[in-house]
């Protein structure tokens, strides 16, 4: 359920390019025009615009953007304009270089994207960074996080609906046993979480709940401060309830003093064409307030206007 609003009568690509060029030229920048065009075009249209813009003006659209605008607004527009695979590759590279426990970007990319999509991200990563994603993750992370995240980003999970019930039972038992012995980074836990298909994992988690009376994440909450456990819980939530997972990321980004703009931008730009509508509904349900109002309250200026456009306003 995307929130992106594309006008029913989309102007020709050449017109869009011309308007954007005008927005960049002269004194200052017409940010509202940028938002009104780019903020209302889907991935294919944006790709066409980038292509036509480069041909017409001999300059990359993204280059013009970085030259003319700055700050959180710039980051939001750049991330939004990129192709989904490139976007994820850029986010992944940033996450790897600036990695610290508690960063969930890699988890999101590995678990909240389809198998085929993760592959395109890995290809885009090759093209852009001349290294493989798993190579960089392995080289920059250490310990348990490396043990979990390298296979997580390398997975090419089966996407079919088949479920082996016997296996779901036995693997739920294995998970329970390892968790019970506090062996959170045990090979078996890693194996199950990083290789099984989504359908199989959901069945496994369901059986865990049936057999042991509570969801697996409850058992992983023993130490609320342990970052590795948080990461495991994030992996599981990305599979079982992605909309609520992203709702929580946004809620934590907005809540309290200050705003984590990077997380907010990330969720909105990566989900606007996927399931931002569901995330909005989850937000409303959890916070008794519409997400747009919360975003407007916590951000300002062109950055705010860009986010609201992607949230489906106007």
């Amino acid at each position, binding site marked *: 359920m995307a929130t992106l609003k594309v006008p029913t009568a989309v102007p020709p690509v050449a017109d869009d390019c011309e308007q954007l060029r005008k927005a960049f030229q002269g004194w200052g920048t017409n940010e509202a025009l940028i938002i009104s065009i780019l903020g209302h075009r889907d991935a294919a249209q944006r790709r066409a615009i980038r292509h036509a813009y480069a041909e017409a003006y001999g300059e990359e659209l993204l280059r013009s953007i970085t030259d003319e605008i700055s700050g959180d607004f710039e980051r939001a527009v750049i991330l939004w304009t990129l192709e989904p695979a490139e976007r994820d590759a850029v986010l992944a590279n940033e996450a790897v270089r600036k990695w610290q426990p508690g960063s969930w970007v890699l988890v999101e990319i590995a678990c909240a994207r389809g198998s085929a999509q993760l592959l395109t991200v*890995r290809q885009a990563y090759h093209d852009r960074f001349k290294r493989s994603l798993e190579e960089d993750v392995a080289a920059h992370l250490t310990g348990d996080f490396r043990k979990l995240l*390298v296979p997580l980003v*390398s997975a090419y999970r089966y996407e079919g609906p088949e479920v082996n019930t016997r296996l779901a039972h036995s693997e739920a038992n294995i998970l329970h046993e390892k968790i019970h012995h506090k062996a959170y980074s045990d090979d078996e836990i890693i194996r199950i979480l990083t290789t099984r298909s989504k359908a199989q994992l959901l069945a496994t988690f369901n059986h865990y709940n049936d057999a042991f009376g509570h969801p697996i994440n409850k058992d992983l909450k023993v130490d609320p401060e342990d970052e590795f456990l948080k990461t495991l819980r994030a992996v599981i939530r990305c599979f079982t309830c992605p909309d609520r997972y992203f709702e929580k990321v946004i809620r934590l980004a907005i809540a309290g003093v200050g705003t984590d703009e990077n997380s907010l931008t990330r969720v909105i730009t990566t989900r606007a064409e996927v399931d931002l509508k569901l995330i909005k509904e989850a937000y409303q349900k959890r916070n008794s307030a519409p997400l747009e109002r919360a975003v407007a309250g916590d951000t300002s200026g062109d950055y705010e206007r860009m986010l609201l456009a992607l949230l489906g306003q106007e």
Partner: protein
Amino acid sequence: MQQFLAQASSNSSAASPPASPQPRLRPQPRREPQHREREAPAAMADDHQELARAFSGMGGLGVDETVLVSALGRWRRQPEKRGQFRRSFPGFFSASACVGAGIELCEDEYVRHLKIEFSRFKSAMVLWAMHPWERDARWAHHVLHKAHPPAILVEVACTRSADELLGARRAYQALYHRSLEEDVAYRAKEANANLLVGLVSAYRYEGPLVSEELAKEEAKALGAAVKSASASSAKLVHNEQVVRVLATRSKPQLRATFRLYKELHGKPLEEDFAAEPCLEEVVKCLDSPAKYFAEVINGAFKDGADKQAKAALTRAVVSRSDADMEEIKDAYAKQYGAKLADAAAKNTHGHYKDALLAMIGK
């Protein structure tokens, strides 16, 4: 098995050393001319020998279909000639003519041997016609579900390009409704699981960019891993650094690392990894697939090559004939001082031989 072949050849002509190219299969021949049961002259003995060879009774892979069919023709309506042949080939037919119904019964083991030899051509053709991705997926599946040697998995993971390996993973999902890494992780539960999962999941960068500095650093890290493993009897295949470097770095980067390792430590990495078979294969496959496949092919021709070593011949030739067969031929000539095509012709029979030679090329 060898004893059958030895018996077959030693019981045949005592008169002349056979034209067989595999005299090595015979131990000291038990030449006892006075035990010759046949009243046939030496020509008949030659016939028997030729037929035995065509039935893969004197070594070499495959069967010689042409010779077999011509024997059919020659001995049409002459069952006594067949009887003589049976008596001349104790490896195939039970030695004593008086056992069981008073006839020469087939030796079960030899019938099984023939099943394999007759089907080599079939396997080669079916594999050749298959899409390479499906081939690789099926070979991987055999490793996991039929206990074929894990080296095959290493071969598939390390000698194919990144996109070919990806294709194999796609084909695996389509065929078996599981992901390849899922099955490897689940079934290769012994020491090698982490390494194998890492290898099959890799989507290596394929550009030529190499960082000498990084290669040096990782060559040192590998050296440290080797030292600590020999000191503590821990397995190298469990070493995180080893797995990380081998399973994620690009191939050009790895070759630089291997080169620097040799410079730093005086010997090639595969030597230091030789104690752990999987690791040695990984290094060989990543460093020089052509050399690796030349070794595999030669392994099929050796005396005492087992079933898997022989099956590897078909696998190597079919999977590489469109890829780097020319380099393999060069590596083979360099390593063994003989042309690959010649060695193949010498060690195989019939349509199987023709198929291999066609794939090997001039």
